[in-house]
């Protein structure tokens, strides 16, 4: 079902008509963003994972009761500080943030595609989607 999953980099197809051309172009960019975002994030998660397991491999974690995440990765600036000191969990968390951002960036790029086509209705629809995600982000932060 999923033929060219991630690793298939060939992008050879013919645009059907001139009208369809821009649509296809945007599809290539969207595919590229999705694949690139997943790959970059996985590199961070993997490297962070190696640091984490190497340093804390023999400690006993307690995931049975919910306690949130360690303080040194509870905000974005803390995560960046943690990366500067090669903290494995901070590197993993940055990878995860990149991963979560990937489909959101995809949505933002679709807006540019619709703008090129002068499809104002769909620019509007795309902006609503982005606003909902933004609202979600703010509400998570506020709580």
């Amino acid at each position, binding site marked *: 079902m999923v033929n060219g999953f991630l690793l298939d980099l060939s992008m050879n197809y013919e645009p059907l008509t001139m009208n369809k051309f821009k649509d296809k172009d945007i599809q290539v960019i969207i595919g590229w963003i999705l694949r690139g975002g997943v790959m970059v994030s996985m590199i961070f998660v993997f490297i962070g994972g190696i640091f984490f397991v190497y340093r804390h491999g023999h400690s006993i974690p307690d*995931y049975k009761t919910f306690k949130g995440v360690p303080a040194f990765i509870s905000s974005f600036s803390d995560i960046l500080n943690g990366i500067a000191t090669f903290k494995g969990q901070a590197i993993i968390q940055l990878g995860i943030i990149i991963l979560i951002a990937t489909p959101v960036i995809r949505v933002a790029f679709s807006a540019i595609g619709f703008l090129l086509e002068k499809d104002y209705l769909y620019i509007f629809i795309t902006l609503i989607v982005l606003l909902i995600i933004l609202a979600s982000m703010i509400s998570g932060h506020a709580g």
Partner: protein
Amino acid sequence: MSVIVFTIIVLLGSYFAGLLGSLTGLGGGFVIIPLLTLLLKVDIHYAIGASLVSVIATSSGSAAAYVKEGITNIRLGMFLEIATTAGAFTGAILAIYVPTHVIAIIFGLILIFSAVMSLRNKVEQIVHKETFLSKKLRLSGNYPMNDEMISYSVTNIAGGFFMMVFAGIISGLLGVGSGALKVVAMDGIMRIPFKVSTTTSNFMIGVTAAASAVVYLQRGYIHPGIAMPVVIGVLLGAVSGSKILVHTSSSKWLRWTFAIVVTVLSIQMIYNGIKGNI
């Protein structure tokens, strides 16, 4: 259990979850959450957070391939993403207040429903009649199949939209892609051809999961020590699954195996939920 043992067990479990999820189309989350909560006694919020992250990885990875083939209906996806992201936002907020054992029971019920859906023989009905909304929103499209273009239109858009809100809520509450519900909305209600509905649903899953993941991330539900082996394992499993599928065409026995595994897991989730163990 030490970090290293936990990481190895979760990596292996997630690999098989990703493999099965990709082969059956149900997604990896449905195996990951029972594995983490029932077997490894991980708090369900952590399990949901990790599963959600893996859902974004697999759906983005495979959407990249689908979009390229030109089957995905990007306009339809974008329009319905209003419904799924709004639902996911609601679901993520609900997850904070709904007791964990209730989440486990809902999880089990949705899991059974998805297993049944994956076994059902589907009948395709393509509609060609344009409605006011389908014309206004430019939702009709065409897709290539055996060197010819098959055109289709979309019906009952309002009904499909509301079903998508529900799919979004479930995705945000349980940390799964809720692909089965999205397919109900698209095949069942809106009469979209299977190829288009599967790829477009997959295309939407990443954004839907991201909308609730931003809440989970800030609430501390996404723990790097758990999410790391889950996301790596599920993604590698899904990649392997996509390679296998190229070679084998019949996957009926696999669907049955998976449906049985999933039913056993869901009964476990419901039982433990009712007993208050989760």
